[in-house]
């Protein structure tokens, strides 16, 4: 404004003044002085550097990098210029150029704190964690009051899985700089991993309050909500972020994940594709796209996305490999999947996701060194993430059961279930009461009224029952029939019913036309899946809650109830960590009580539903005589017999439930009556079920609906 043109100034003086102006935030004066210097001496390093810093401060990263690159070409370039170039390249995602520049910087000046700090975070992003750690430890050694360095060190420690140490450094950063929003946000992410979602959410909120334009804080808040299955809440945080950063790649990715969890797959795909378009080289984004494609059964595309995700160095590649393994597992390529997980474990022996999936596939023998490796990870100084520790306990439970050590197996299973139970809020008494109300809401006279005629209501076949009772097996057998499409576990019915009102209360007042309308809504949801098939199987087990209403909505629909020995069913639930919440399954007593409530409700449905629409099959009978049972089920579905149903384990279909790895094998009888050797570990369950383990196996625990029952015993063979 009132500065004359600085013509009389020497270059040195002009640079001193330019820097002083910029320090005080007076960009115009500083820029004028820099231009003055560059006019006299084009390529003058200090002037270019300052121009770059200013461009960066005003958000022009590309221009800034351009200036800095030229500044760093000077023969007498200063180390700090290289360090600043390194940081700007990191921000641009140019990790290789960044690393070269940062290394040049600290080679020139080994005492430069900023250089080591920048190198530390570059190495961290490149996945070179041990090196990153030593850089950042050097930084806090040189300058213990450097808040940003403590936060960066926390990030590296966190990625190394050293969560408690990471926490110490985040807390230190916040002591040094109480309004440091990034550190609050980082702490939030860590607390979520440590199994403290409420504290994590509070930290994310604090971060947003301190800096409402900090995208990571919103993403971390959303991650907390996704972690506790509150996907709608997660979407709210992401939408709040997208309202001011509409093309934020991370936000689009998280929204795609939340939408995928909500089965809103088309929307999820749109977001994932937008994210990939904005950042095609970002591995995490490719991964998210792959997960959505996988959920849509577009397996080739999904695999391609996982392969692209595995390309760049960094963290996305591990995740991509695991996703690839899970996909192979779902396709039935057990060998390929196992090899993939072993590849990950060779590279990252602490990858819990790899161990967890590997354990599910692998049959452990006593003395397998991999059991000891997992034991070491849950020991005192092992992995610290709470969800990770829970998963490891389940994996170890499985491994020790394989290896024949029930004592150790149940020790781990009890631990894992207790930990998981602590993260869910479940009211057993309320659930039992609710299930009782459902039966009362559908007395025989209500169900036997004439129903409205709904065209095409014979399309769906509902396969339902307890989780782990054999619903996947039944679906697999039927879906091997050329006229049947197996759609898997669909949330559609529950969504249609939830939208209609409070269940079961609304069902007592709904009109015939209202019932038919619900039926049409459901059919609209599944018809696109059917293509040329005559039957679509919806095998959401929990649809057992709605069997009566299904019959009212869709009078021609078939309902196939799969039963299995109660203790075997519950034992199987107890040994699994479900991906969808099964909140009753993590405590033996609650599990037994839930089973009893389910059993009573099924007694009711059996009494009131017509036999041509409601069929019960027993898992044990299928295992004992698949031929008879398969024919019975196909006939019930109103279809002609097809021999493909007996070759179900060859069907090229995707299976996505916890039972996956058993269905891919020919039938094993070792899953029948499996619980007896473990009775002493199952006492709370047996008490709740009212079963005395001392008594011999009753001939028909489940109530006698099977004609093939007598064949069961002699056909049992060891695994």
């Amino acid at each position, binding site marked *: *404004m*009132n*500065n004359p043109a600085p013509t009389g100034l020497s270059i040195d003086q002009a640079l001193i*003044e330019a820097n*002083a*102006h*910029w*320090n*005080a*935030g*007076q*960009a115009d*004066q500083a820029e004028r002085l820099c231009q003055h210097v560059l006019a006299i001496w084009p390529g003058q390093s200090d002037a270019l550097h300052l121009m770059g810093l200013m461009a960066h*401060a*005003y958000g022009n990263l590309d221009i800034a990098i351009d200036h800095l690159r030229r500044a760093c070409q000077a023969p007498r370039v200063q180390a700090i210029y290289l360090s600043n170039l390194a940081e700007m390249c990191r921000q641009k995602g140019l990790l290789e150029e960044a690393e070269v520049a940062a290394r040049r910087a600290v080679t020139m000046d080994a005492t430069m704190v900023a250089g080591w700090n920048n190198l530390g975070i570059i190495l961290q992003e490149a996945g070179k964690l041990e090196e990153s750690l030593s850089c950042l430890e050097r930084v806090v050694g040189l300058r213990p009051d450097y808040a940003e360095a403590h936060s960066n060190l926390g990030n590296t420690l966190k990625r190394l899985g050293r969560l408690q140490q990471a926490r110490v450094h985040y807390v230190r950063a916040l002591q040094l700089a*109480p*309004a440091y929003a990034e550190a609050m946000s980082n702490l939030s992410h860590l607390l979520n991993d440590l199994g403290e979602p409420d504290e994590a959410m509070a930290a994310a909120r604090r971060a*947003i*309050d301190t800096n*409402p*334009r900090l995208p990571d804080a*919103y993403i971390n808040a959303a991650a907390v909500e996704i972690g506790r299955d509150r996907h709608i809440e997660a979407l*709210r945080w992401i939408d*709040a*972020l997208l*309202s*001011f*950063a509409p093309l934020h790649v991370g936000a689009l990715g998280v929204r795609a994940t939340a939408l995928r969890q909500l089965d809103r797959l088309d929307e999820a795909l749109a977001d994932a594709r937008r994210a990939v378009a904005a950042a095609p080289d970002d591995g995490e984004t490719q991964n998210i796209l792959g997960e959505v494609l996988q959920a849509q059964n577009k397996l080739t595309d999904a695999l391609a996305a996982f392969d692209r995700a595995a390309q760049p160095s960094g963290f996305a590649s591990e995740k991509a490999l695991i996703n690839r393994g899970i996909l192979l597992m779902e396709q039935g390529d057990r060998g390929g999947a196992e090899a993939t997980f072993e590849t990950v474990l060779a590279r990252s022996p602490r990858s819990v996701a790899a161990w967890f999936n590997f354990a599910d596939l692998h049959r452990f023998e006593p003395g397998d060194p991999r059991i000891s490796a997992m034991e070491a990870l849950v020991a005192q100084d092992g992995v610290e993430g709470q969800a990770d520790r829970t998963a490891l306990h389940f994996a170890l439970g499985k491994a020790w059961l394989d290896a024949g050590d029930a004592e150790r197996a149940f020790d781990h299973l009890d631990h894992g279930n207790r930990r998981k139970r602590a993260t869910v809020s479940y009211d057993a008494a309320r659930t039992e009461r609710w299930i009782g109300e459902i039966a009362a809401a559908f007395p025989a006279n209500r169900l036997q009224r004439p129903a409205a005629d709904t065209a095409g209501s014979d399309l769906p076949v509902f396969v339902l029952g307890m989780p782990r009772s054999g619903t996947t097996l039944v679906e697999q057998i039927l879906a091997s029939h050329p006229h049947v499409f197996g759609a898997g576990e669909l949330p559609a019915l529950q969504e249609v019913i939830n939208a209609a009102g409070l269940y079961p209360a609304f069902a007592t007042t709904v009109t015939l036309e209202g019932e038919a309308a619900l039926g049409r809504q459901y059919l609209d949801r599944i018809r696109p899946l059917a293509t040329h098939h005559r039957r679509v199987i919806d095998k959401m087990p929990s649809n057992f809650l709605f069997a009566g209403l299904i019959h009212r909505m869709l009078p021609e629909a078939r309902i196939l109830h799969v039963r299995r020995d109660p203790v075997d069913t519950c034992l199987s639930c107890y040994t699994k960590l479900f991906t969808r919440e099964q909140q009753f399954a993590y405590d033996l007593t609650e599990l037994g009580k839930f089973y009893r409530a389910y059993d009573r409700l099924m007694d009711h449905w059996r009494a009131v539903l017509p036999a041509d629409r409601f069929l019960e099959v027993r898992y044990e009978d299928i295992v004992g005589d698949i031929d008879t049972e398969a024919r019975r089920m196909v006939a019930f579905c109103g279809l002609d017999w097809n021999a493909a149903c007996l070759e179900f384990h060859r069907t090229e279909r995707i299976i996505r439930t916890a039972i996956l790895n058993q269905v891919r094998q020919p039938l094993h009888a070792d899953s029948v009556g499996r619980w007896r050797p473990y009775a002493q570990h199952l006492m709370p369950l047996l008490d709740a079920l009212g079963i005395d383990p001392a008594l011999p196996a009753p001939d028909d625990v489940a109530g006698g609906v099977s004609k093939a029952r007598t064949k069961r015993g002699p056909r049992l063979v060891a695994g």
Partner: protein
Amino acid sequence: MTPPVFDVQAFEAEIRPLLTVGKGREAEALIRPLIAGGAGPVAVWALLAQALRVQGRVQEARPIQEMLVGALPGHVSTRFDLSETLLLLGEFERGWREYSHRYGLAHTTRIERKVQRPRWDGRAIPGRTLLIHDEQGYGDTFQFMRMVRWAKARSQATVVLEINHETAALAERMGGFDALTVRGQIPPPFDLHCEMMSLPHAMGLTLEDLPGSPMPYLSGSPERRTVWRDRLSPYPGLKVAFLWAGRPTHFNDANRSMTLEQLQPLAQDGVTFFSIQKGPTEQQALTPPPGMTVVSLSPQIADFEDTAAILCEVDLLISIDSSPVHLAGALGRPAWVLLPLLPDWRWLQHRTDSPWYPSVRLFRQRAWGRWDQVVDDVASALAVEARAHRDGLQQERAPIFPNAEQPVKVRRLG
């Protein structure tokens, strides 16, 4: 088959013009049905908040604005709007916090000074140097200069005050800092900085801290005062400096400014009006309304030193909300301020005094745009003042009472 899609943008285009002319009640009547179910688009709630504000129903707007910030925490302009509401309600703690987003707005991001040192957070920093720099409005500078001395005491730092050229001389006489530098020049080296308007947040300023000491904190130049005393002495009666319009580029100028014509009812015997109006409307003083004795000082006012000296030598300033009001307040000189129905946050609500300036008296609109009522109130008060002056009484300023209809409610903040 599908229900018609509600067009939020078209609705906004319909409502905004109503709000800018103060038709809050009409706007509210159009908005309410859209959110009758308790839910509605964010933009519609934002319109409702503004419709309540322009009716002066600020307390009712507040929970809506807080809800909007809760839903869209990153929407900085919503936070800034909330800060104005909170400060207007005297809720300083959160108000100052949200006010810190003032440089995050679409039209302000480019003007934020990107000082390359950390911002002071209110802690003691003995041995270090703190740069305090003023921002845009002269009124803001006059109002918050008082905090420089307090910041020095709190920080125990060496304080460098950077200030605009036009107010530097007043700052120099004020003192309370270690060095003074003028904006645009290179300041001495410093370790931390703080914008003048960020001092309240950094220091946790509460209503109870006001007006603070010393009060007054500015003074006129003795030399200029002599000049102006001589210049004004020939004129008889009560000497009233006045102005009627603010800087036309101010975002709220249409709402705060008047014309000289509208002040005609102030004309009365025994009062000489001195126009200190600057800018495009200063010529109006040359053709004053009938019956009004107006002497235009505007051409002779070179800078704020002249304005300050005039304010020290007249009996009273009568003004719309503009920088000379703050100058008078900081000088401890009597000033009467004519305020619109929805005033700037610093005048708070429902009171005739100002906690910032003991010598300032507030005359508020009772209905949107009704300056006539305000001018009548001021004329009555001025008649009392003029009579007292004529009777040669050493007139005590009228004690400050809260508005009879609206008792003062100042919430004590922790």
